């Protein structure tokens, strides 16, 4: 005898008994509580468990109508297996980063310290993978915004911290000019990934979790691209043109969320 069998007996209106029950109770504190004091708790829970709703054709008809509306590119994309959605999201970032590195590399790339490059690439990539993974994989307990606040703070805050890190020798003397260009460059290059994340979202209205994790991943992706593209080491330039992109994506996702809630 096991716990579900004991529950089922109660639900059927019976009080379980016998040697098999005694054997089970020797190792199960939970069921002992159910059967204590003339099985008072087991009977009470069984009475509360009764009264199931009958099957309703109307309810199923509404669901069928909803399923029928699941057509088009977005419906197709968000119904793809999670491994594929995750892979495509990562590939979109890799493609953009690869293109940026190949076509518009920073002028001082040859002198850029390898250790610094590897460290930044590693940290940014880990953050992006973590954010995509948490966003796309169906976790048992998705958690509230508070559960992801560390990741969000890290993803949005890291570029701000890097803005104050010592600049490379070649980029030390650059001024703050060109911040808007960098902002637009980074934001536009991450736009396709943002569109993919929106399409991949299986909720009709983006959750706070999606909003925050998407913004964090997009901000890190944009900063990764700009690290390979822009040679400026000026803190003001880095704050306004690079680090602010994650915050801007956060604001944009909030707008999308609010609009979808209203609609």
């Amino acid at each position, binding site marked *: 005898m096991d716990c579900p069998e004991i529950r089922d007996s109660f639900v059927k209106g019976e009080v379980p008994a016998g040697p098999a029950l005694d054997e089970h109770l020797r190792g199960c*504190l939970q069921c002992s509580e159910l059967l204590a004091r003339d099985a008072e708790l087991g009977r009470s829970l069984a009475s509360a468990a009764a009264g199931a709703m009958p099957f309703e054709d109307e309810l199923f008809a509404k669901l069928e109508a909803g399923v029928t509306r699941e057509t088009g590119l977005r419906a197709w994309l968000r119904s793809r297996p999670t491994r594929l959605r995750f892979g495509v999201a990562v590939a979109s970032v890799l493609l953009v980063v690869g293109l940026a590195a190949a076509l518009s590399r920073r002028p001082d790339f040859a002198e850029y310290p390898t250790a610094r490059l590897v460290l930044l690439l590693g940290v940014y990539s880990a953050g992006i993978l973590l954010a995509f993974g948490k966003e796309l994989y169906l976790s048992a307990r998705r958690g509230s915004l508070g559960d992801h606040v560390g990741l969000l703070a890290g993803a949005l805050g890291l570029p701000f911290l890097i803005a104050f890190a010592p600049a490379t020798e070649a980029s030390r003397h650059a001024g703050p000019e060109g911040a808007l260009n960098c902002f637009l460059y980074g934001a536009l290059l991450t736009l396709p990934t943002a569109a993919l994340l929106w399409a991949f979202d299986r909720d009709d209205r983006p959750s706070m979790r999606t909003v925050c994790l998407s913004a964090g991943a997009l901000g890190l992706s944009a900063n990764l691209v700009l690290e390979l593209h822009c040679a400026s080491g000026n803190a003001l330039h880095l704050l306004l043109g690079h680090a602010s992109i994650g915050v801007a994506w956060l604001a944009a996702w909030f707008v999308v969320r609010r609009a979808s*809630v209203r609609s």
Partner: protein
Amino acid sequence: MVSLCVAQTIAGYIAPVRTDEELMAAYIAGDKAAFRELFKRYTPLLQRAMARDLRRPEEANDLVQQTFLHLHRSRLDFEPGRKLKPWVFTIALNLKREYFRRSKRRHETSLEDDRIAEPFEGPRGQERSDAARETALALRALPAEHREVIELHWFAGLSFPEVAEAVGSTVAAVKVRAHRGYVALRARLGDQAPDPERVSDVKPSPEGSH
């Protein structure tokens, strides 16, 4: 739940009843009737799991529909060999939590609230027994994490390992929560304060007994 079961069909011969997992596999392969059968099986369980925290049956029905819509959108993630029920309840619980976050309402509502004191009615208009009502009220007074485990086990019919999978915890932790909830429930139903030592010093029963 229905594995290895057989049922006699109207025609009089013995036909195997398909398991939830077989139905899901059939739905993925394009069998729409399988989806209807899954809906028929799971709707009462989901309604019971949803309705106890909600003020109106329509809200519970809306969340049940959303659960199935998510199941449809996630169908290609279903892997052979995986149990369907904990997966469905993982989706349902996440939707319920998100619903409460959006509506900025608390799970734990006041016992003085008459609408909550009269939980979601069972078969249309049917009176719940006094015992059932008292139990429902006592359940509402439990901490959410204890109540969730007891409700999934008793009202949705999940075993403790399935509950653990659905809530993203370990079997041992789920059993501790269930035991603490039972102790508190017994105290409430017996109208006496729980002994704090009994509630807090609980050791889980062996993993094998679930």
